[in-house]
């Protein structure tokens, strides 16, 4: 599903590489947690996957799409196949919950009837039923993040990338968000999660990839934070 082969990303020569010859293979339906200190290269890795950045060298293939052969005009098509959840939610402040989720469908030309049918279903998956009319600022951080998740999954992507989705949340809300991610994974979506949260990593007992100074230092199945 996700394949990185000796991927290096250098922003400036005198700074050294943000990612240094990283190789990673993620199978379909897998739940992978990427951990590492701030500045280790986690966000760079995710930005490469969403093609916000281009690797300096190496190969990236996601869902059969070879990034080397990807033309600029095809980048939107790629992004429609990947759901992304951001640490800062990136919700549209002037749209309500329903509209924020619907937006992901609008931009790909889904009809209003289909939107009215699909969005409530997805909102109930993330436990936001009844909050359709709320504006983002009227919601707690955890609820906002669940709106962001609903938006990321409403198009039923095969891959969901979550960049520190619990970073701005208290433990209770963080755990709500993680539970939603687990449920989505059970439905068959490949999930790639980056986090700092030791407790979450230890509880989840999933595959954990550790990045340090731009290199993968460990890659273990059913791992916890302590052993990373």
């Amino acid at each position: 599903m996700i394949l990185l082969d000796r991927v290096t990303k250098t922003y400036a020569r005198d700074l050294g590489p943000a990612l240094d010859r990283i190789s990673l293979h993620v199978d379909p339906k897998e739940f992978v947690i990427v951990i590492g200190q701030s500045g280790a290269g986690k966000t760079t890795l995710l930005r490469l996957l969403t093609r916000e950045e281009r690797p300096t060298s190496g190969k990236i293939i996601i869902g059969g799409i070879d990034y080397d052969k990807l033309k600029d005009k095809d980048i939107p098509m790629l992004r429609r196949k990947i759901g992304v959840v951001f640490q800062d939610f990136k919700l549209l402040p002037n749209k309500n919950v329903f509209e924020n989720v619907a937006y992901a469908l609008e931009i790909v030309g889904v009809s209003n009837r289909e939107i009215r049918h699909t969005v409530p279903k997805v909102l109930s998956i993330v436990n936001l039923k009844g909050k359709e009319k709320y504006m983002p600022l009227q919601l707690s951080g955890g609820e906002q993040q669940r709106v962001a998740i609903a938006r990321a999954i409403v198009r039923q992507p095969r891959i969901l990338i979550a960049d520190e989705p619990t970073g701005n949340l208290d433990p209770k809300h963080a755990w709500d968000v993680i539970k939603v991610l687990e449920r989505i994974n059970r439905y068959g979506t490949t999930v790639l999660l980056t986090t700092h949260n030791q407790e979450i990593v230890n509880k989840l007992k999933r595959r954990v990839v550790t990045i340090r100074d731009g290199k993968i230092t460990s890659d273990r199945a059913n791992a916890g934070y302590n052993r990373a």
Partner: protein
Amino acid sequence: MQRRLITFWRIIHTGIVNFMRNVTLAVAAIAVMVVTLTIVLISLITNATFANTISQITDKIDVSVFLQDSDTPAQTQQLISELKHLPNVKSLQYLTKAQALQQYEQQNAGNQQLQVAITETSNPLPATILIKPVNLNQIQDIKTFLTKPAIAALQSDQPSYSGDREVAINKITHATDVLRKIGIVTVVVFALICALIIFNTIQMAIFNRRDEISIQRLLGASTSYIRGPFVVESAIYGILSAVFSVLIVNSAFLASSGALQATSLGLLDINYANQYFDAHFWQFLALQLVLGIVLGAVSATIATRRYLKFKTK
């Protein structure tokens, strides 16, 4: 296909909504676009009016060739036929001696002395060929032909070239050429200023919505889906400006014909300009709409380009 239609409609809808939200920002862009389109419109009408004035004057001008009384009808026919083949001859008219006299009498109907002088002698006027040239500025080929010895021999007098009027016509033609050039330069300058102000307006709109655009990008919105509303917004500036410019010119004509009762400003025949504008009203409106929409859409497309590029390194 249906998805495309839905997307197309959403782009138009978003463009209209954005326009309503940014209406104060749009005022400057619309104002300068109205000025640009009004100048275009006035230039077009002025040009047509000058062209009409010139053609009215030039229609009255001809070259008169005075024939010898001794010329045979065959020689005259031969000359007419040769003249007809000259490229700069638009039309020609042959006047017999009797017709020439008749015309002379008509032209001088008020002058009793001249009338008497004419009847006292036998008809002194020669048979005449009146030539209307296509282009007054290129009358030289007709002159060259008429001064050939064989042709000159058939003539009783030097041909008349309506000399002073030709000079006047040249002056008018020159003046209208200069005016046309000034018109073109003014239109180009204003179009550029207009494009820059639209750039600015759109860039401010983009700046206000940059977060939204980056989110749209990350969610997989296509370039045209993001750019479309901006283009629609600018096209609305164009549509409004086109309507305003036509209304302004229309009001100006109403004011000039009603209040001032002016019919002519020197060479600019206001009545003709008014008629010309009325006769071509829908064409002008259509042209202004096309110009406005194109100017707006092109400016917006260029203004959004740099914000919609993907990272290439």
